[in-house]
Structure formats: structure tokens, C-alpha cells
């Protein structure tokens, strides 16, 4: 009986330690900084008044249909996402499969979505408990910055909503340059959360 008790104790300990370590490792894709020390390219992050989205003609953007899909391999690092309001910077990787999302934030690769340098829908997904823990603090008007291929894309949040995990109306074609963040909801739910938290923003500047 004593042996069993010790065995249970040890098994439990190993499970906690192993999973705790994986958990910690996954949170490492997020860098934090104080809102007083927001990096230069993101200095207008607190301007939450409505800004007009960038007209497509003004941007140095190529037509989606003409450009071939980028030659990334799944799991390649493609850029960073910055959210000064919560003082966080995330590494962004190509793809949203199970292994990619363990690395950090994933950029959705599909027939409906594009990379930030193209006019269309950019979708980023992240784990609720390790990466996108503070997404609930964002509000309409806040800014999201994506650094991609030496350019900074400034998106302003237009809409935040919660939907079912089976909703197929979120990841769709968009004509306007749009950024969508997806994570699980409820945030404090233990286990496979049944809903998704959606943050949708439009491009207001690119430089």
C-alpha cells in the first residue's frame, strides 16, 4: 500500500512537472513590455478614435490573384504581432496546425486567407491559455501591429465577438485588408473550450 501511494505521488508529480514545463515553454513565444516603453513603430497605439481604413489604391499591395502563395514551410517564422495595449509581442509562424500552435501564434494558410502584404484576409490563431491569455482586454479602436517582411502593418479593431467553434463564416474571403485574431473562449475554461473569441481589425496604415 505504501509503495502504491508513493507510486501515485511520483506519477502525479511527473505529469505535473512535464505538462507544466510544456506549458511554460509555450508561453515563451510571448514577450512582454511595459506600456510606457512601447517600441517606436507602434507609438500611436493609444489613438483609439476611429481611423479611416487604408484605401486599397494607396497601398503598396499586390492583387491576391496574381501573386502565387508564399513558399513557406509549415512552422516557419513569418513575422511578429504586437499589441501595445497589453504590452505583448508574439512570434508568428506559418500554419495553424497543432504543432505550429505549440510554437506560438499561427498564420492561417488557406484559399480564403492571405499574408499581410496582400489585400485580403489575414487570420492569426493562438492558444488561449498559453499565448492569447489577455485578448479579452482588447476593445474596439485598439491597435494591432503585424511586422511582416520589413514592413509594419497597423490594424485598428472594428469588432469583437464570440462564436461557435464550428462557425464557417469567420475565415472567409475579404476584399478589404483585414486582420482577424482567433482564440478559444471562455478564457478560464478548463479543457476544450466550445467557443471561439474573434477580434477583427482593418488596416489603417502600412509603412
Amino acid at each position: 500500500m505504501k509503495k502504491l501511494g508513493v507510486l501515485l505521488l511520483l506519477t502525479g508529480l511527473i505529469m505535473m512537472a512535464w505538462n507544466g514545463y510544456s506549458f511554460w515553454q509555450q508561453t515563451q513565444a510571448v514577450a512582454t513590455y511595459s506600456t510606457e516603453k512601447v517600441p517606436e513603430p507602434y507609438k500611436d497605439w493609444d489613438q483609439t478614435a476611429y481611423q479611416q481604413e487604408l484605401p486599397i489604391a494607396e497601398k503598396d499591395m499586390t492583387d491576391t490573384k496574381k501573386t502565387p502563395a508564399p513558399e513557406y514551410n509549415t512552422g516557419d517564422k513569418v513575422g511578429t504581432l504586437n499589441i501595445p495595449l497589453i504590452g505583448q509581442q508574439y512570434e508568428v509562424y506559418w500554419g495553424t496546425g497543432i504543432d505550429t500552435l505549440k510554437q506560438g501564434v499561427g498564420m492561417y494558410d488557406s484559399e480564403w486567407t492571405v499574408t499581410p502584404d496582400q489585400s485580403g484576409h489575414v487570420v492569426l490563431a493562438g492558444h488561449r491559455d498559453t499565448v492569447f491569455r489577455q485578448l479579452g482586454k482588447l476593445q474596439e479602436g485598439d491597435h494591432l501591429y503585424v511586422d511582416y517582411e520589413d514592413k509594419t502593418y497597423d490594424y485598428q479593431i472594428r469588432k469583437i465577438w464570440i462564436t461557435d467553434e464550428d462557425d464557417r463564416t469567420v475565415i472567409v474571403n475579404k476584399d478589404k485588408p483585414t486582420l482577424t485574431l482567433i482564440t478559444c473562449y471562455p478564457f478560464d475554461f478548463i479543457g476544450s473550450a466550445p467557443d471561439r473569441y474573434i477580434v477583427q481589425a482593418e488596416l489603417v496604415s502600412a509603412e
Partner: protein
Amino acid sequence: MKKLVVAVLVLVTLTGLQIPVFAENHGEPPVKELEQQFYDLIYMETAENYEVEQYDSLDRLEEDMKSIMVWPLADHYLDTYFEERDGNVYLIPTEGPIRLNMDEDYTLEKISDEEYKLTQHGENALRGEYTLTITYSYEAGKWVFGNRMDIVSSSEDGGEMPDTATSLPNAMAFGGALMAAGALLLISRRKRIA
């Protein structure tokens, strides 16, 4: 009591340290085997007039196609590459689908327990640079082609939501529960001795 504890331990060991304990694991799709079965159906031997000798009717070919791929995909290949005239099946002479180069590297990404996505970059004289994409779906107890080069546009409007939940907190809680059970056992034993 002892048996119960042993049973719990065996269960934990068998399912490994990963949770969810009860998720079904179908393994990876048999990429090469499926690929070969696909070519056997697409690149069939024909007579000089492109008559397919192996099949008398499109119905039988359709049946075989649908045993290795989802229906809309099978319909696409049947419509594109075959026709039936006077009770014979003919191959429509045209450029065949992009093949997977088995000697070159490819990435196989797990999308979910029921879906894997394969990508392979390649280049040839006919197509220039290209990216081959194949999706595998686990349907009715086996792996089949779910899509190839996005031929089947999904019946729904848009893409599937990524799986953004981790099971790590669950697994940690489960480990904690095991530790608590172990500690309880030890304490109760000590009390009995005292």
C-alpha cells in the same frame, strides 16, 4: 482498493502523459499507399483509342475511386479524366494530376485527429514552380483523400476554426489529482499504523 489503484495506474501508463485520455488516435495517414492506389486508378493502361480495359463501366470505377477519397473529389476526377461511350470507359487524353514526388521531402501537418495536410514544393518543365497540397480525412474508419490542390471547394462558406485549446492545464490538474490520491493513501496508512 489495491485493485482500483492498480487499474488507475495502468490506465495512466497506457494512455501516456498526454490528455485528453479519451481522444481517439488514428495515427498518420498512409501517404505512399494511398498515393499508389490513386495512380493505379488515374494512370490506367489503355488501348490505342484510350479505351480503359480494366473497367466496363464508370459506375465500377466510381465505386473504387470513392473507396480512397471523399465523394466530391472522386466526382471531379471522374468528370475530368474519364468518359463512358457505348458501354466502354475511355480515358480523356489530357495532362494528369500533379504527382507526389516520393523521393523528395514533404511536410505532413496534423490539422486535427481526423485531418492531415501534406505540402510539397516542386518544379518541372510543364508547370514551373508549384506547390502540391493534399488533405487527408479520416472517414468511416479509414484514411482517404479529403482534397487535392483545393479541387473541392468546401461546401461551407469559409475555413474551419483552428484548435486553440491546449490540454496542458487538464493534464496538470490530473497529475495533481494523482498526487493527492497518493498522499491520501500514505496518510491513511500512517494513521492506521498509529
